[in-house]
């Protein structure tokens, strides 16, 4: 019988004198490229976005101005508003192209089944969350991504779409006034754009902690695609 994961991932056996390891090709090249390009562009978009926001750190009127938050300069990139805008409008292209490439690849290749959160994942969310946050028993690992991961990765696509659409409205409110309507108008679009960033920020720390906890083998798989001894096989 073929040694296959449930998802038809490509696998190999690695022979040594004492044991045999299985390795699965979890992350195709396009996915890895997109992951790292996106990590870079997201970093730039968030840090320069915060610098841009610092120029008017409010969601209200200019007069009287009530600041919402004071963003420390060391969290920002670009130096000043003009510099941050240059970074933002350069990496916006990289962000959008990367996102589109990723989504199209996932759909065409069928690889989306690995990460797409669907109805049948709903029941698995709580057991996983209980394990992560409340020391509950670890649920059985049956596939590359657990329900909580799927929820995170799938919602990050949603945040990406929201960030892109609201970004376009803020960039071209006169040309895209019709797109501002579902967002509650130009003024509120700025709030949505900010919330899209908060969505990403809510995901990234957890993601990084998990990467740190799961060690080198897991991290290395996002570089080379192959994961040695995956739990689900």
């Amino acid at each position, binding site marked *: 019988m073929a040694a296959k994961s*449930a998802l038809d991932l490509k696998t190999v056996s690695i*022979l040594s004198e004492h044991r045999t390891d299985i390795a699965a090709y979890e992350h195709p*090249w396009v996915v890895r490229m997109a992951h790292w390009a996106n990590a870079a562009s997201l970093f730039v978009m968030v840090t320069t976005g915060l610098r841009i926001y610092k120029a008017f750190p409010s969601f209200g009127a200019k007069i009287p101005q009530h600041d919402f938050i004071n963003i420390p300069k060391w969290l920002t990139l670009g130096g000043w508003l003009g510099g941050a805008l240059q970074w933002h409008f350069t990496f916006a292209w990289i962000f959008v192209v990367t996102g589109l490439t990723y989504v199209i690849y996932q759909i065409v290749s069928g690889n989306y089944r690995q990460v797409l959160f669907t109805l049948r994942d709903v029941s698995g969310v709580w057991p996983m969350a209980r394990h992560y946050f409340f020391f509950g028993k670890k649920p*059985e690992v049956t596939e590359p991504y657990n329900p909580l991961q799927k929820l995170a990765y799938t919602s990050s696509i949603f945040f990406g779409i929201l960030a892109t659409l609201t970004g376009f409205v803020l960039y*071209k409110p006169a040309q895209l006034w019709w797109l501002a309507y579902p967002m509650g108008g130009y*003024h509120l679009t700025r709030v949505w754009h900010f919330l899209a960033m908060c969505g990403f920020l809510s995901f990234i720390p957890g993601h990084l902690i998990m990467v740190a906890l799961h060690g080198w083998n897991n991290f290395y798989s996002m570089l080379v695609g192959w994961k*040695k001894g995956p739990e689900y096989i």
Partner: protein
Amino acid sequence: MAFLALDTANDAKPHNGNDMNPDDNPEKASVSPSDVREAPSDEEKVLTHRDFSRMSRRELLKLSPLVVLGAFAIPRVQEKLLEKGVALSDWASGEFFSKSRLARTFKDSDVVPFEKFPYNGYDILDPEVDLDSWTLTVEGLVRNPGEFELPKIQTLPKIVQNTRHVCVEGWDAIGNFGGARVSDFLKFIGADTTARFVEVECADDYYESLDMASMLQPQSLMCYEMYGKPLDRGHGAPLRLQMPTKLGYKQAKYLTTFRVTNVLKSDRKGYWEDQGYSWHGGL
């Protein structure tokens, strides 16, 4: 096929922890090391550790295109790349702009009170223009160059509109503006509207340059009134540009010179643009 397999695997296995018997799970059993050694599948490769490491390194090298992104960390290259990035965005902005597409206009009740319409300037709010002797100098690719007094500009049809003023900093305010269409003024001075740019200079030494397409948009005004009163000094008396399709910094105040041209000096595209703002600045 794979999808089906996944479904059944999920159904068969309650999430009940680590005490599963591997025999319960045919898939799990099938890939136990002993099985693989006895019956390697046709599809599956068997590799030595060395081969596997070599294959992994090859996969790692395939990510090398990403090194290009590292160029953004090199200061000298970085500046050029960002210039290119902004130029690309500006090009896209210009292509996307349509002079027949109108910016939204608003009801009188949506307009902020005059006191809440912000004053903004790069330096001083009152460059002390002598309003009595003021004229607008018209130059460049026009049939009627010369000095234009305000009453002359006011003979053109007056447009009054409630539009949103958007500042690059992120704030916005809906105001009430009155003036002559830039497009009417261009006709009035016999401008070559196939020219690419209009340059303006201001009494406070501010300067700007704008694309002809945006100037011809029917909501672009040579603005001399706000809220039904002559423009006050802080908002650019006696004449400013008011364009709902441009960011605030493009809408120069205290105009003194209006030049139609095909050539922009690379170091004099606009006060803020020369420091790094986007040139198109279109909304």
